[in-house]
């Protein structure tokens, strides 16, 4: 008990609050809560901190931004645009950049942070996917996380459309073309969204309220649920000695994680500020106000929209056709509507599909090493390859100008590549995983190559292999072996199909796809056998052996 004035004030306040909330119980438990340590767990943290930075800088920007398409004439301090007609939205964005001290910095932090936000969400999702962190009991949190990722994309697009500059307007006309491609009702949806003709004056205020209130409220709400579930489930941990499905090994929230994770917030924020200081982003004054008739070559959306842009560029024109006088523009709709829909559904479904295939109902708190789930890792790599190819399709003009190649060749190549390359990536990745598993087996059975060459008395040279420590070996043998299910027999003795076997057959076939090619982890019997007649003894055994041989005079 502190008797100083400060101590009494703190103690008194804490007591006041606890008597009215009972918070001490939660604090006692919460402050000693253990988090495991790993660099890959910081990816989600970057996303979390970027969200905070976005809310903070975004609030500042709303103080000066005018969400209106009303026409005005620029009279501010940026010379080249003085006297030019523009919207209030563009004018106020120029003012934030030129008249408000630190305004440009805040705008740049906001934009950089938005890019980092989406990027860190994407990489965090890769981490969760490749380590199998989505397995029971975290399937719901995977779904929430994916929803957050989608909201982040929409929020980002709404945000960079707001300044009403030429580039963002081009992005909006792209969005409008996609809306028009919705079969049957496209023109109606477009007219409702834009409040009449494109571009109209209705969209900017509508986008604004979606960007500053509607989507952020959903983002923050879902994020709170996301992080509460993380606390409830307790964080996953990588496998290792002493780590089990029943415990979590790491450092307590107070003081270590408060300092580390709290400090990391300041590091992320600081790096974002430095980026915004040293690297210009979205110089809207260079683009000019939006006008539907001009455009600049090399127009690019923010990076996370690049894959959809790529899909739109690669789809061939013959996918547009007429049926009974109705025009169906699948050259746009497949890229803009069908593809993101399919990708989203596939990502939402994956944890449930894998759980069905493995039939595994256990809770999983130890992560998979990606090599130990070769099919999953292959599928993930395949998805990334598909994404990257589409993304490079979105930059086909830049590739053509930078590398002086034909835009037509690049486009034609990518049209085939997006279909052919991902399956190749799947196969190669899976083979690499299996190879790494075999290497793990070798290490456990025969030990580590020490690099020391020893000459035996009879002249043979051998390299001394040193056995792994039990802790190192455990890392390589701790995982589950998965084996495909036996194919059920389709019919009984009288040739009558058994009910329910259709689903079973599909499941068995899928389990063959998943686990047919596999490397069994080392079993204790194999390890014992390797030790018994090992040609790769530990160096001490080697010495005694040699001494024995010398003593018995066999040479």
């Amino acid at each position, binding site marked *: 008990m502190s008797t100083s004035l400060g101590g009494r004030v703190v103690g008194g306040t804490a007591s006041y609050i606890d008597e009215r909330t009972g918070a001490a119980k939660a604090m006692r438990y919460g402050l000693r809560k253990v988090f495991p340590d790993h660099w890959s767990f910081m990816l989600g943290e970057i996303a979390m901190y970027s969200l905070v930075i976005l809310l903070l800088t975004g609030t500042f920007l709303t103080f000066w931004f005018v969400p209106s398409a009303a026409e005005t004439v620029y009279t501010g301090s940026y010379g080249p645009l003085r006297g030019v007609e523009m919207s209030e939205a563009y004018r106020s964005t120029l003012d934030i950049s030129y008249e408000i001290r*630190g305004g440009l910095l805040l705008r740049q932090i906001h934009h950089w942070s938005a890019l980092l936000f989406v990027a860190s969400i994407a990489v965090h999702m890769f981490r969760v996917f490749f380590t199998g962190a989505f397995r029971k009991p975290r399937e719901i949190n995977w779904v929430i996380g994916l929803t957050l990722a989608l909201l982040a994309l929409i929020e980002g697009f709404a945000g960079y459309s707001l300044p009403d500059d030429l580039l963002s307007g081009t992005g909006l006309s792209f969005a409008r073309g996609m809306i*028009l491609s919705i079969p049957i009702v496209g023109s109606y949806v477009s007219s*409702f969204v834009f409040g*009449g003709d494109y571009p109209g004056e209705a969209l900017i205020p509508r986008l604004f309220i979606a960007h500053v209130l509607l989507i952020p409220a959903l983002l923050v709400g879902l994020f709170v649920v996301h992080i509460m579930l993380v606390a409830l489930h307790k964080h996953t941990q990588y496998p290792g*000695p002493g780590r089990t499905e029943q415990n979590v090994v790491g450092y307590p929230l107070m003081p270590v994680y408060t300092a580390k994770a709290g400090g990391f917030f300041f590091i992320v924020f*600081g790096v974002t500020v430095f980026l915004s200081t040293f690297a210009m982003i979205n110089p809207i004054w260079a683009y000019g106000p939006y006008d539907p008739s001009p455009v600049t070559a090399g127009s690019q959306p923010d990076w996370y929209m690049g894959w959809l842009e790529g899909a739109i560029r690669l789809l061939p024109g013959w996918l547009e056709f007429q049926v009974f006088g*109705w*025009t169906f523009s699948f050259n746009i709709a497949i890229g803009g509507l069908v593809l993101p829909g399919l990708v989203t559904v596939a990502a939402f479904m994956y944890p449930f599909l894998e759980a069905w295939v*493995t039939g595994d109902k256990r809770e999983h708190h130890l992560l998979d090493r990606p090599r130990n789930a070769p099919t999953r890792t292959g599928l993930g790599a395949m998805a990334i390859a598909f994404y990257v190819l589409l993304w490079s399709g979105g930059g086909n003009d830049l590739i053509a100008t930078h590398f002086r190649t034909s835009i037509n060749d690049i486009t034609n190549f990518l049209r085939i590549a997006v279909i052919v390359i991902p399956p190749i990536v799947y196969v190669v990745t899976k083979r690499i995983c299996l190879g790494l598993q075999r290497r793990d087996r070798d290490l456990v059975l025969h030990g580590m190559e020490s690099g020391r060459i020893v000459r035996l008395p009879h002249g043979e040279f051998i390299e001394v292999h040193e056995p792994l420590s039990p802790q190192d070996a455990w890392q390589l043998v701790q995982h589950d072996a998965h084996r495909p299910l036996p194919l059920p027999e389709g019919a009984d003795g009288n040739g009558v199909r058994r009910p329910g076997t259709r689903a079973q057959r599909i499941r068995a076939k899928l389990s063959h796809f998943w686990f047919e090619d596999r490397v069994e982890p080392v079993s204790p019997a194999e390890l014992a056998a390797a030790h018994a007649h090992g040609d790769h003894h530990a160096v001490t055994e080697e010495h005694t052996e040699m001494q024995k041989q010398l003593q018995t005079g066999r040479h």
Partner: protein
Amino acid sequence: MSQTQHGSTDGTLAQRPGLPEHAPQIEGTTAAPTLFENPGLPPHVHRLADTDPKAAKRAERQVAALFTLSILGTLVFLVSYFAVDPQTPVYIPLIGRTLLQNFLLGLGMGCGIFFIGIGAVHWAKTLMPDEEVVEERHYLRSTAADRDGAVQALQQGGEESGIGRRPLIKATAAGALGLFGLPFIVALRDLGPLPGDRLSRTMWKAGMRLVSDPEYAPIKVEDVTIGSVFHVMPEGIDKVHDKLEQKAKAAVLLMRLDPADIKSTKQKAWGYQGIVAYSKICTHVGCPVGLYEQQTHHLLCPCHQSTFDVTEDCKVIFGPAHRPLPQLPITVDTEGYLVASSPFHEAVGPSFPERGHR
């Protein structure tokens, strides 16, 4: 929660007691768990600062220095905000010309924030306990008693409400709850007018002069030399209240070709002495088709690279667009200025479902 039991480093991995030699699959699943025994945490290795008071003191000074850098950074921000002229340019290597105040504000704020983080992490890594702590997990599933209790509470509530025994209430409540949201959906109707035929119409009328964009000057035949290209709007577009909306549909490209190069008779007839006018709005998603290749007479959309051949009535020769750019029929008025001889004969711009109905 307990402090860790550390395992030993000698010996080898042991088999879990009571298991067969070959790992058995869990019934109904593909998974077979490992047969080995978890060896427990390796022994803890102490850091220099844990054992050497001098190293600890040094770490303390480093952390304090990092926090001091943060304080200095914030001061730089404050001083630059008030004392540095916002218009003074400066040249920074690797960045180029920028405004001094912006640069100092960013540098100050960045240091003020960044060094707090570095200091805190360095503090945690060197001076705070680094011995790992083990916390037990518990199954999330509630006990059987709690589950039964929850089901009972729900059933009891349902019975006490009497919803099962009073079908009239059940039906009307379902109807009311099903309908009450409708007004909020119906009210979305007035987000915008029905599309009507506005997507199919532009400002262009017969006899309307072609004016250059952005000067809005009428164009004479002799102004348009072979190989030149004009960005064109209908006369009077700067006077209408919905200027941007009309521009988005009416923008036209005017080019002059050698009449011998034109392969389509319709194209020749709708042009004037090799001068032809085409909608500038791409038939793909509606970007302005801004790039004209003089030598090949190709028009390229810079957004998605749809390529149109002007010598063949602007048909698509590459890229994602499907339809040719619509041609605007033109002629010359009595004063020698280029005018539209009729409106567009089809809808311009990106495809929409009803565009074929007209």
